[in-house]
């Protein structure tokens, strides 16, 4: 897989806390057997209730970096959520924190999610709101987020960081390679062996 080291692009600010995956992609759009076409429905219900929603704001059209608050992506495990954001155009996310399943789903799709402080989220959102054209860079090798004159350290769990920057985020291929070791593990599990070794 391709190494994911730097993402640079215009950003869309959504600095709210506890945005759940039902809001990112309402459940009715999970009635599908592929992930195609989800992009246009990202945040659909929020957008219908807020005519000024950033995802409808022409100034942020073409943005590829999402700036969010705390616990982004909580709730349902639906991978349709990151898939919808990716299909909308998002290539990297910056937030105060992410929910765990959502974070893993993003990493499995090569989408880096980095954490910055609440204050950094506030400053980034303000900078992007003031000038939506300003590019934002998520730089994984040096774990930094840059935007105009602003520069913040960011964090990412070491395993996701290493998987993305070395291009080894195709977990399926790696897992399948270890077939013999998987069988060896199965042989020592009491419940797969009549509990005789327990």
């Amino acid at each position, binding site marked *: 897989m391709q190494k994911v080291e730097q993402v640079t692009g215009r950003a869309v600010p959504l600095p709210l*806390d*506890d945005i*759940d995956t*039902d*809001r990112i992609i*309402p*459940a*009715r759009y*999970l*009635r*599908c*057997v*592929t*992930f195609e076409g989800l992009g246009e429905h990202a945040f*659909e*219900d929020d957008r*219908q209730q807020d005519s000024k929603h950033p995802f409808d704001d022409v100034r942020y059209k073409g943005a590829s970096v999402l700036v969010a608050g*705390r*616990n982004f992506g*909580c*709730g*349902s*495990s*639906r*991978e*349709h959520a990151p898939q919808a954001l990716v299909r909308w155009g998002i290539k990297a996310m910056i937030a105060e*924190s992410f*929910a*765990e*399943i959502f974070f*893993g*789903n993003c990493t*499995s*799709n090569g989408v880096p999610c980095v954490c910055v402080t*609440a204050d950094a989220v506030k400053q980034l959102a303000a900078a992007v709101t003031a000038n939506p054209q300003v590019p934002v860079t998520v730089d994984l090798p040096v774990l930094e987020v840059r935007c105009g004159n602003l520069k913040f350290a960011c964090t990412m769990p*070491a*395993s996701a960081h*290493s*998987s993305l920057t070395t291009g*080894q985020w195709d*977990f*399926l291929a*790696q*897992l*399948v390679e*270890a*077939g013999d*070791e*998987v069988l*060896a*593990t*199965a042989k*020592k*599990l*009491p*419940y797969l062996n*009549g*509990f*005789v070794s*327990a």
Partner: protein
Amino acid sequence: MSGRQNLFNRVWDLHTVRTMASGQTQLFIGQHLIHEVTSPQAFQMLRDRGLKVMFPERTLATVDHIIPTDNQARPFHDLLAEEMMSAIERNCREFGVTLLNLNDNRQGIVHIVGPEQGLTQPGITLACGDSHTSTHGAFGCIAFGIGTSQVADVLASQTMALGRPKVRRVGVDGKLHPGVFAKDVILHIIRKLGVQGGVGFAYEFAGSTFDAMTMEERMTVCNMSIEGGARCGYINPDQTTVDYLRGRPFSPQGAEFDRAAKWWLDLASKPDAEFDHKVSLQAADIEPTVTWGINPAQSVGVNEPIGAVSTFPAEEQKGIQEALDFMELKELQKLRGVKIDVAFIGSCTNGRISDLREAAKIAEGRKVSPHVKALVVPGSQLVRAQAEAEGLHEIFKAAGFQWREAGCSMCLAMNPDKLQGREICASSSNRNFKGRQGSPTGRTLLMSPAMVAAAAIEGAVADVREMM
């Protein structure tokens, strides 16, 4: 050292295949459960790579999210839902996975079916493409909700890549007050520890309050671990666990069961087991609890006023006010007396026979308020059959509740059971997120099934203790 290992770490080590290049563990998954919503793309990923299902006998499929709970005749009116049904039928046939379809009396919500069939056992690892997979931890196993890419990983390799979480012991001790249920316990825990308090942790729920619970109550608690941010929650196996599993279709039988029970009981964290973090709560502090906001931590006791916005941390106040505005509630208001439009009893949180029994006790001899639409949706066909054998359906119907077929129903907006417009629903489900129950502007008040029954009868949020 292993004597001081908690159950989580012991089971994790047992299932470790290897450490991957990223530092994550390749973890063997003992039982995989799938359903129609998060599996079609995963099967396609296998097809695209020419992969097979490695252990087809260790994956079980059922259908729950999209199925109608009234008219289940095929093809479904909803053609998208029908397409998903066809997809899981085709995928299971092609890849050799057993499917408990609508015409199988074992069909139901995946997290109700697994335990009911004896597939969920202590000491195993279990995964399912659904965040409420934490439910299965009630048996002392490690159970994770996963995304679709990981469903493909488990199908193709019976393993997944995962970082080892820390383990927090969430202790609750003492006897619950009458009218306080497992649902109130977990809502109270989430209120105290927050919706993201559990991120990075597995929760071990331990203490005399959980010891005294039935397996079904324990499942309700573990089910909502994810609502507190913890992907995994569990309770140590004990004699209650062993007794529940004896004689289930997929449980070990005969002498093998006795060997299994010995191993299961030995897995439990010992009194001197080590944890990364511990918290302690008291059962006596827990009241019948109701959510007032748009996440499951935003709750209060039924007779307790919602806090003043100014008493919340400064950075949360804007979000708190937005939640109150969405719900059309005010700070310092009490939930009791808030008028409801819909009452929903069911879901993987509270759709088991004991939940229906508690709700029926409240419904018996009473009438649902004329303005309330009330639904009882059993979590599985077996729960439904048991309830009918006990006559619970007659109690519900006489009271004015609709008696439905098994499925996820109004917990989420993927089948015909949905809120309309600004309706407000007293719900025994697990999420009060904006739009969760099918109307983008619909509102959800989470509470125990008995409290939902009480609200249905009152036509407004009520204190179930006055109706017991």
